[in-house]
């Protein structure tokens, strides 16, 4: 490569094995799968375009610039490209290291952005007690009538634009978090497997019922369930947002909470977390104290539907008099990130009383993409609209999905026209009905 310019040394991308970028043969098969390329039809907004930029940086032909930083954050990280890629490019690794490089070089710096990153990544999502405390306050705000008052009074017009736009989509915080709903250890009638249950961060506050339902279906299937207290964020939020060092800290913290050798599997029910949780060994490969455990961890982490199918879960019996028209949205980080597509459908098809209708473009991103709907509201809004239109076409009154981000994004888009629900909630409900009858 001639004409190399002197550029600031690379911290994260410099560590990357060059063959990872080289694996992209720029064939273009990723283009039609990429929501941002389809929007702009500009190569830089496509996976192979982004990889070309990363490669230019790795080659020293391009420095880490603001435009590069913006491009890395325009990417949803939906990983649809990894499903389309014939060459098996490890896009998640490239993308996370590129974002980390962007943060390291500070090319997107501004004081407001720094504050929000500090508040979320360093505080709320690193210290679970703090997130829970904030959750409590938010819960009070929502149940006390203040929320109603704020919305009716129009006082929000005094708030900054971002906050004003976000307020209506604030998730509803539940009264009881996971630790109050699930005991540290729960035993089935007969123990066939021993599993650890991950309760997450947002899931813990907003969907603790999904965590409870997960424990219920595990117990029904002979799994002894161990649920360490107050687990907090797994670090996927940090890794996806360019903070690999804190992501590694979060991974270590989580590894310390589980006695891995005594467990057959670690169960997650949030797709976005799962696709990150299965790659701790990548994050900790240079940490001799954790590398081996991380590799074992990666092997044992299972999405709940993946695990259920693997252990040949018990199909609930009974018939339902009324069929509920139901459709399934595939969370990106389940189908693209973990290659899990048939298992949730298998779980759903076992449940009496569901009339399943296929969703057009079920594997297309809904625009939630972690915090993308906050950082890139326009693009996220377009994808949300497309998703809602496809759902409405099915005429389903129930949309099943396995990720809290998708859940909130789709529910916000749908309003009251259909209900979004996690597949384990339906399975747990079916087991319950079985007992009642």
């Amino acid at each position, binding site marked *: 490569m001639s004409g190399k310019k002197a550029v600031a040394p690379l911290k994260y991308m410099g560590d990357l094995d*060059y*063959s990872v970028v*080289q694996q992209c043969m720029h*064939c*273009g098969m990723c283009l039609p799968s990429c929501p941002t390329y389809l929007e702009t039809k*500009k190569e*830089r907004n496509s996976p192979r375009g982004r990889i070309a930029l990363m490669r230019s940086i790795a080659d020293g032909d391009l420095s880490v610039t603001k435009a590069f930083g913006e491009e890395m954050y325009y990417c949803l990280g939906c990983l649809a490209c990894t499903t389309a890629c014939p060459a098996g490019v490890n896009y998640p690794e490239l993308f996370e290291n590129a974002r980390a490089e962007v943060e390291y070089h500070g090319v997107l710096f501004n004081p407001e952005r720094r504050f929000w990153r500090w508040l979320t990544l360093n505080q709320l999502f690193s210290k679970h007690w703090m997130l829970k405390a904030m959750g409590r306050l938010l819960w009070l705000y929502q149940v006390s009538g203040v929320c109603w008052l704020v919305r009716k009074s129009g006082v929000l017009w005094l708030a900054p634009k971002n906050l004003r736009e976000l307020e209506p989509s604030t998730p509803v915080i539940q009264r009881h978090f996971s630790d109050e709903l699930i005991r540290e250890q729960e035993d089935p009638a007969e123990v066939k497997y021993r599993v650890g249950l991950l309760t997450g961060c947002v899931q813990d506050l907003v969907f603790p019922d999904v965590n409870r339902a997960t424990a219920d279906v595990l117990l029904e299937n002979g799994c002894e369930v161990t649920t360490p207290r107050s687990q907090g964020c797994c670090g996927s939020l940090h890794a996806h947002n360019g903070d690999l060092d804190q992501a590694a800290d979060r991974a270590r913290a989580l590894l310390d909470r589980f006695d891995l050798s005594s467990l057959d599997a670690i169960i997650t029910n949030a797709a976005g977390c799962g696709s990150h949780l299965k790659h701790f060994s990548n994050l900790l490969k240079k940490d001799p104290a954790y590398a081996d455990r991380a590799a074992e961890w990666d092997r044992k982490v299972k999405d709940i539907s993946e695990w259920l199918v693997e252990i040949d879960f018990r199909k609930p019996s009974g018939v339902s008099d009324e069929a509920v028209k139901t459709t399934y949205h595939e969370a990106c980080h389940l189908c693209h990130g973990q290659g899990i597509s048939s298992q949730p459908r298998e779980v759903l098809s076992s449940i009496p009383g569901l009339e399943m209708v296929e969703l057009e473009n079920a594997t297309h991103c809904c625009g939630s993409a972690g915090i993308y709907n906050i950082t890139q509201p326009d693009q996220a809004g377009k994808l949300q609209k497309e998703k809602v239109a496809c759902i409405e076409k099915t005429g389903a009154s129930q949309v099943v999905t396995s990720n809290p981000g998708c859940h909130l994004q789709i529910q916000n888009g749908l309003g009251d026209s259909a209900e979004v629900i996690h597949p384990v909630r339906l399975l747990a409900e079916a087991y319950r009905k079985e007992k009642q009858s």
Partner: protein
Amino acid sequence: MASHRIESSNLVSRLSSIVGKEDLLTEPEDLVPYGFDGTAALKQSAVCVVTPRTVEAVAAIVSLAAAENIPVVTRGSGTGLSGGSIPVDGGIVLCLVNLDEILEIDPANLTMLCQPGVITKAIDDAAAPFGLFYPPDPGSMKISTIGGNVANNSGGLRGLKYGVTRDYVMGMEVVLPSGEVCWLGSKCVKDVAGYSMKDLFVGSEGTLGIITKVLLKLVPRPKARRTLLASFDSMEAAARTVSEIIEKQIIPCTLEFLDRKTCRCVEDYAKVGLPTEAAAVVLMETDGHPSVVDEEADAMAAIAESNGAITVEKARDEAHATKLASARRTAFSALARIRPTTILEDVTVPRSRLVEIVSFVEETGRKYDLDIATFGHFGDGNVHPTILTDETDTEEMERVEHALSDIIDKTIELGGTITGEHGVGLAKKPFLPRQFSEASFSLLRQVKVALDPLGILNPGKIFDPAGEAKS
């Protein structure tokens, strides 16, 4: 090449006044991703990229380029496999993806008129509701543009029965190197008015004009299809099967093969259940009237069996057919993930010589100690020797060069062609003079000079301009 440089910002502002700021890219972060196409190990940085939305804008850009003597490289989705749309140093990249409308479907005349940026698959999808069919199906059809297909005369899996892109082009609108816009061809099945000029532009790789509209022929959509997968312990047995099928006057729409190495890689990667001792796997598909396809499928199975096939599987239903076809469909994916660089060749020989070229490629791999697997289209003699290598390893790349050169020579010796469907572009430019006699090679140059006397359209692709040193 001094005249080929865009140095004056004046030019940028003139381009901007034609297409608008949104459709003119000049920043390095925007340009880097246009420095390559789907070809391995080739790149050249672009100086500016324009993405016009009207034919008038295309004509204005070409007029401007002609006035300033600046090269123009046309591209669509950039999936080409010969480097044909790689930028020319100092030139404009004219990207036509925004000209992406289907303008007319005419079921009475079985034609479709569309802009060049329409995705190939979208054409067949749009034809389907009318009970019509657009057969050419290059591997990249989900993203390749019809303009690129026409400019490269792309093939696909259905070549044997249905032909290639050229067989479906009835007319086109072209912007000439002078900036003039002209129409060639018509909706008439019979049309002998003057030279068949449209045919000159099919496969011209952007060196003669810029295709801005394409009039395509459609055919009735086949009502049924049957799929079979057979494996053999030698390529010869597979070849005998294929010959006998064609002798029996069965023309399958698909006759694809995988060689021994590809079979192993596919089995490792996709676990489709290919026998480990298989030296050749052949995917056969017949389409047409339901009763005819059943009869043909049975006959093909019997022929395979009588030629000693190890296994013959007939698809029970659509899902099973998809599963059988996945052995061929995953071939490239299975190979591409083995090494960092994947070089896909597309030499083509007369069908009767296919076994010879496949075994020659195998020998060549051994001779130069390279990983080469071959798959391709048995029916039309188009093979894809796929070299798995690492472009950063200069010593190995040297051996790759030698192997390629040997394969090319053997192909020509067997009466074949250096490229069946990918085009010459940059990747096969050095080999073209080996295939062509002096007279036929100079004919190419004469045509180029007659149409593009300034040499501004995709210069240096297919062959070097007269008077310039061969690269």
